[in-house]
Structure formats: C-alpha cells, structure tokens
C-alpha cells in the first residue's frame, strides 16, 4: 500500500466515524462539530482526487461559514434535550422506513451507472504545473457563462429571502430614526382645539 492509499484510508475512516457521530451524538453542538470534522476529511479526500479548488472551497465555505450558521441555529433553538428524545422510539419505525426507501431509490438510480468504477476513471496523475483552479475557471467563464450568471441570480434571491424573512424591526429598540424626526409635521405632535375662552 503506497502512501497515497494510506492517507486515503485514514481520511475515509475519519470521515465515516465522524459522520456516524454526527447522527449518534446526543448533544447537537457536538454533532455540529463532528460535521466540521467530516467536512475536513471530505476536503482531504477531494484533494487526493486532485480537485484542489473544490477542496479549499469546501473548507472555506462549509467549515468557515455554513457550520457557523449551523451552530447559531443549534444554539438559537434553545433545544430542550430531554423533550427532544421523547417519542424517539415511536417515530423510529416510520422514519426508518422512509429513510430506507429514499436510500434504496437513490442507490437504484445512481449506482453502477454513475458511481461505478467505469464511470469514474482515475483522472491520472497530473503534473506539478497543472492548475486545477485555472482549468475550472477556463470552463466556467467560457462555456458555462450562462449558468455562472444564473448562480448570481440564485445568490441574489437568497440574500433577499434571508433579509425579508429574518429582518423585523425590534420593538424594544431605542435607536433614533433621524429622518422620521426631521420629517415630523406639526399636526403629528400638536392638536389645537378651538374652545370658548373661560371666564372667572
């Protein structure tokens, strides 16, 4: 077994164990941290497949940003762990059946045709001068310009949706709105009532 295979088997073992811990860890924060480890190992495996740009983007985007969001969500939910585990066994048969069916369907569709050894030939050792990022850029910015521009539209939709869904004015906020203060009219603040003058 050469050095590359040894590294692959080490990374694959860590990946499988970490993924198992993601779904078995009792504490959701621990599960999220094991997911970070799984992403790192997957990044290493992609690096072994000579997909250097993808590996670095995986670490940068998923470990750096998505996992931060995951941890925020896990912490924001204020999960009551005892209540979460209630009804685990009663829901298990239904959940397991659905999961098994989905796995079976995906396996039937994808196995052999897409994931077989014939479909994924060894890319072969590329020389030290080959730049994976350049190869990717060459395709992305010439042949696949339209999908590339579409990606920006999808990102725009995501930005607008995130802002629209989560941004709501806080009631307890004491910040001054200068524009509203300047634009105020006399009638908003003062009501002049005409009434007969009183005499002693």
């Amino acid at each position: 077994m050469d050095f590359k295979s040894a590294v692959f088997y080490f990374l694959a073992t860590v990946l499988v164990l970490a993924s198992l811990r993601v779904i078995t860890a009792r504490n959701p924060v621990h599960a999220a941290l094991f997911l970070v480890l799984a992403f790192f190992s997957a990044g290493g495996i992609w690096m072994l497949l000579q997909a250097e740009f993808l590996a670095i983007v995986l670490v940068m985007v998923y470990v750096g940003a998505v996992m931060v969001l995951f941890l925020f969500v896990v912490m924001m939910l204020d999960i009551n762990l005892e209540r979460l585990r209630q009804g685990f066994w009663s829901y298990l048969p239904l959940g397991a059946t659905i999961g098994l069916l989905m796995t079976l369907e995906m396996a039937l569709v994808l196995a052999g045709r897409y994931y077989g050894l014939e479909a994924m030939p060894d890319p072969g050792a590329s020389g030290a001068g080959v730049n994976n990022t350049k190869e990717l850029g060459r395709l992305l910015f010439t042949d696949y310009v339209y999908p590339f521009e579409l990606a920006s539209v999808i990102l725009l939709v995501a930005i607008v949706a995130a802002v629209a869904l989560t941004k709501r004015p806080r009631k307890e906020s004491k910040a001054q709105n200068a524009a509203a203060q300047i634009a105020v009219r006399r009638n908003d603040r003062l009501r002049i009532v005409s009434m007969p003058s009183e005499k002693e």
Partner: protein
Amino acid sequence: MLENYFPVLVFIIVGIVFGCMPMVLGWLLAPHRPNAEKGSAYECGFEAFEEARLKFDVRYYLIAIIFILFDLEIAFLFPWAAIFKEIVGTPGVKLFGFVEMLVFLGILLIGYVYAWAKGALDWE
C-alpha cells in the same frame, strides 16, 4: 500536482501533534485523584440552576447568512482571477471575460444594496 500539497499535509500533522501533545502529556503525567469535595463548586461558585443554553438573537443568523452568500461570491472570484490574463488575452473574448464578472457582481450588488437599505447591516 499532489506532491505540491505534501507540505500542507506535514503542516496539518505537525499542528495536530503540537496541539494534542501537551494535553496528552498532561493527562498522562498529572496526578488525577478526584473526590466529591474537590469536584464540587467552592468559594464564589454555586450549583447551576438553569441550562447554559440560551436563545440567540435572530440577528446573528442574518449576519451569518449574509456572510455565507458573499463568501460564495468570493469563491467565484478566485478562478476568475486565476484565469483573467488568459481570458483577456484571447482575441474573440477580450472584454467578455471582464464584462461577465461585472454582470455577476452587478446582480449581487442589487442584493447588497437591498440588504443595506433594509437595515440588515445595522445592529440597532
């Protein structure tokens, strides 16, 4: 290509060993004789009366998701920067390689202006 990344692997291994070795040594060498009195809260400490987990403000989530989206935008910029000279040097697509990125950034600029105008970037 992979041999270029061998130093990175060495760095990762050295980093892990360097980080874990003091903890392992401390665990191996330090005396470890706990008892109920030693492990209990003392002096100013008191027994925990509620969970440490508490609700985060949803605004952290908004900041994080905006960070992710612009992080993805940056991820598209790297291959473009790597290939830029080559694209601009090609006769047929001289300006095209530049304009396509301007369009990409322009569309995302709308999102940025929207987030800014909606006050998503302000804390208060």
